[in-house]
């Protein structure tokens, strides 16, 4: 993240340390993760100890301290989704993408994640691809969706 970009984000939030969460969210939105260098800069600019920023950044699941892939695939493993076969979807994805939940493929295309409940249990099992919810999923459907992800992307926009 360039200095000018960070400047813009900080200015948007009036350089207020009380807006630290919103600032982190904006950095995450622009970079897809929270780069250490940027966090250190935020700490210096807003006079917030780095410990406090790191505490927040590791507490919330929205934030990632490692670069994430171009596409984030989130499998819901809540109770309803679990009963409806989330584990097998997750297995499929783990095998196909060759990553564990929380990891990113080596080509930086996909990040696989799990979530404990999205509150849409009627649609179980649920998979979220780049923020779009897909209900009643099967492992194979998810995979074909990822392969034809251009289609999925156009659908989203």
């Amino acid at each position, binding site marked *: 993240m360039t200095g000018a970009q960070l400047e813009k984000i900080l200015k948007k939030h009036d350089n207020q340390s009380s807006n630290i969460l919103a600032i982190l969210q904006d950095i995450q939105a622009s970079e897809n993760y929270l780069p*250490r260098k940027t966090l250190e800069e935020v700490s210096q600019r807003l006079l917030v*100890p*780095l*410990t*406090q*920023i*790191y*505490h927040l950044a*590791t*507490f919330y699941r929205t934030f990632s*301290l490692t670069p994430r892939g171009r596409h984030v695939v989130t499998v819901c493993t809540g109770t309803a989704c679990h009963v409806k076969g989330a584990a097998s979807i997750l297995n499929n994805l783990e095998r196909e993408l060759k990553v564990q939940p929380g990891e990113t493929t080596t080509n930086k295309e996909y990040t696989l994640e799990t979530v404990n409940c999205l509150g849409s249990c009627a649609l179980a099992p649920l998979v979220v691809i780049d923020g779009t919810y897909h209900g009643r999923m099967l492992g194979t459907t998810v995979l074909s969706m990822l392969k034809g992800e251009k289609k999925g992307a156009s659908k989203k926009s």
Partner: protein
Amino acid sequence: MSEKELVRFQIDGLEVEAEKGQMLLPVALEYGFEIPHLCYHEAVSPYGACRLCLVEVTKGGRTRMTTSCNYPVDAGIEVATATENVLRARRMILEMLLARAPHSETILTMARSAGIEETRFPIIDDADGCILCGLCERVCREVVGANAITFVNRGDKREMAPPFWDPMACIACGACVYVCPTDCIKMEEQGDERTIVRWKRTLKMQPCKSCGKPFAPQFQLNWIVDRVQLPKDFFELCPVCRKQKK
């Protein structure tokens, strides 16, 4: 200046008096009541993490169990420090703490005096003795002001650590070592180097100009000089030599 308001209330039937808004635990300790506690220290703000200082408080006819370290006293409350309920809850908490810190002398002693020989919970294999009471973090932030460590992650992955596991802000003062209730933060001094083992922080110590003995980390001394704006040569001598010079 107006005088602080005093309130009267009861602890185990004894009439006591304290400033309104003061926390219950220090008041009770002052009056000689024995309430076990691990995460409380008078030098820092209360946190209520270890849960051992549980007491029963009756207020307005309702009784509830609460941690006394962060309960502000009020007029007319009735506090019971050792009811059957409280003791049972404390025993359970001690058993859980014991599973986390099976080698801590402090916790072992507390458990034994509460009549516990062993814990029913599986002992965590790689238990390092940390009970996540947060005392080290509060001391580092509130008293020292170094802000070197913090709680990281959450849930079962929660741990105390420097940001990015890079202890760059640690001045190796040893305040966390001193305050840790389970002694899981160790400090070692070898030659002219001091290491805080848990944070993996090693700093070179400054030798005394008079006796030549290394006495404190250079990084720490510079940090203090910087913050309090002392003259650059303020820490030339070790505390012993400085006393003699006077």
